[in-house]
């Protein structure tokens, strides 16, 4: 999806929108909504259902993992061997790249679903 740049020009937007809604409100509120959207995000592409949008859908779940960086970070942690209170001032870029340990912690999968525990009302 194209970047959502907040380039709002209120005067222009309402002017254009008013004209659009007056023309089409009776028939198509969609067009008014489209005008609103285009005014907010002028860089939005012309082909809404096109390949950019679909490609984003197909790439769901992509998380970048570099085994080199992961091992470097692991080695660094071993060398430090002390519980650091705050962020290390000498952090190298490699530490910023998410390692599997840094991925959002998932709740332990052994916890029973609430549905299974509760009463049926």
């Amino acid at each position, binding site marked *: 999806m194209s970047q959502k740049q907040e380039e709002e020009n209120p005067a222009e937007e309402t002017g254009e929108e008013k004209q659009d809604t007056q023309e089409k409100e009776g028939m198509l509120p969609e*067009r008014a909504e*489209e005008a609103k959207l285009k005014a907010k995000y002028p860089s939005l592409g012309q082909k809404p*259902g096109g390949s950019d949008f679909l490609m984003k859908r197909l790439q769901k779940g992509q998380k970048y993992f570099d085994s080199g960086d992961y091992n470097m970070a692991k080695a660094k942690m071993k060398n430090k061997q002390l519980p650091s209170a705050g962020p290390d001032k000498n952090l190298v870029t490699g530490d910023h790249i998410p390692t599997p340990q840094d991925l959002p912690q998932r709740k332990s999968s*052994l916890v029973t679903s609430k549905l299974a525990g509760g009463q049926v009302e």
Partner: protein
Amino acid sequence: METGTTEADIISTVEFNHTGELLATGDKGGRVVIFQREQESKNQVHRRGEYNVYSTFQSHEPEFDYLKSLEIEEKINKIRWLPQQNAAYFLLSTNDKTVKLWKVSERDKRPEGYNLKDEEGRLRDPATITTLRVPVLRPMDLMVEATPRRVFANAHTYHINSISVNSDYETYMSADDLRINLWNFEITNQSFNIVDIKPANMEELTEVITAAEFHPHHCNTFVYSSSKGTIRLCDMRASALCDRHTKFFEEPEDPSNRSFFSEIISSISDVKFSHSGRYIMTRDYLTVKVWDLNMENRPIETYQVHDYLRSKLCSLYENDCIFDKFECVWNGSDSVIMTGSYNNFFRMFDRNTKRDVTLEASRENSKPRAILKPRKVCVGGKRRKDEISVDSLDFSKKILHTAWHPSENIIAVAATNNLYIFQDKVN
């Protein structure tokens, strides 16, 4: 979302089995909970059987595909039951990548009196054994066990959106964004690819598969829907690869009505055959449509689910709600169809009387045994006391998944992390 709601508890699929005795739910945490309807007792003739927890198990775990740098969610996308063929129950559950066949069975007897081990299972010293006895089966408290019997993995590059059991009970299909595979229940290391819409050049990609289902009676026929609002019916007898459809269902669009949102809101989020096999029902963002298999050029019925959202499309696009995937269901006799909406509302359309109703699934508005009150959304102008205005709708409370008992008027409605079961009023 209210604080305290764990994401893992969000229900992602609901399905009755073929008799309606069991109701399965899958959630974002990869767990399955099965409810069973209690037998109607002779003492309480007028009280319909209620659903109680029968079994629960962890179906899928989160995975990380290091090779492709892909995080694989454990969320259960779909559950489909197999028809019952013996004392055990079987269901298919799937996440984005892997389908599993689970066996749910009861154990109410336990063997006792082993020779070589004691009652705790510890091995006995053979020197102390002087007599031989035959172990006997003794009754025990009912235990329900779920075991994974088959794991169908590594067949999908893209995300699985549908599974469907064939009427031959020997095969089933799994569909992802670009491909559909046919499996035999007994074989896990192979599947047939029956539909492949992946273009040679991915930049030419214009549509994806959004849902697929086998015909309820004809084991050679299936349908799949697309993000462009079309449905294709395929016949597996025609060729091994069903890239060429047998029927193509598409409603003509008035080009002057086209807007930026047209294609997005026409994307079909669910497709379901009627029990009779004569019709298919599709759900797109704003409507539910019923199609006659014999007429491809337009649906025979169109029902407006929440047309008032047309004037909110801009903000619904910004908060991604426009991409919400609502499901739809038929009742047992195919006379009523149901689908969800926002604000924990769900809608029912009677195809015969053409009447529709909006109901709400929420704790505040329903006590057990109370009758659901119809809701109404007010579009503009004066709002009556009981109505709710479009601007007050809570878009985080979406009912995407519902299920209808195969023969009775019992419905299951999933509202985020809560499951509601409603029954017809008994006179």
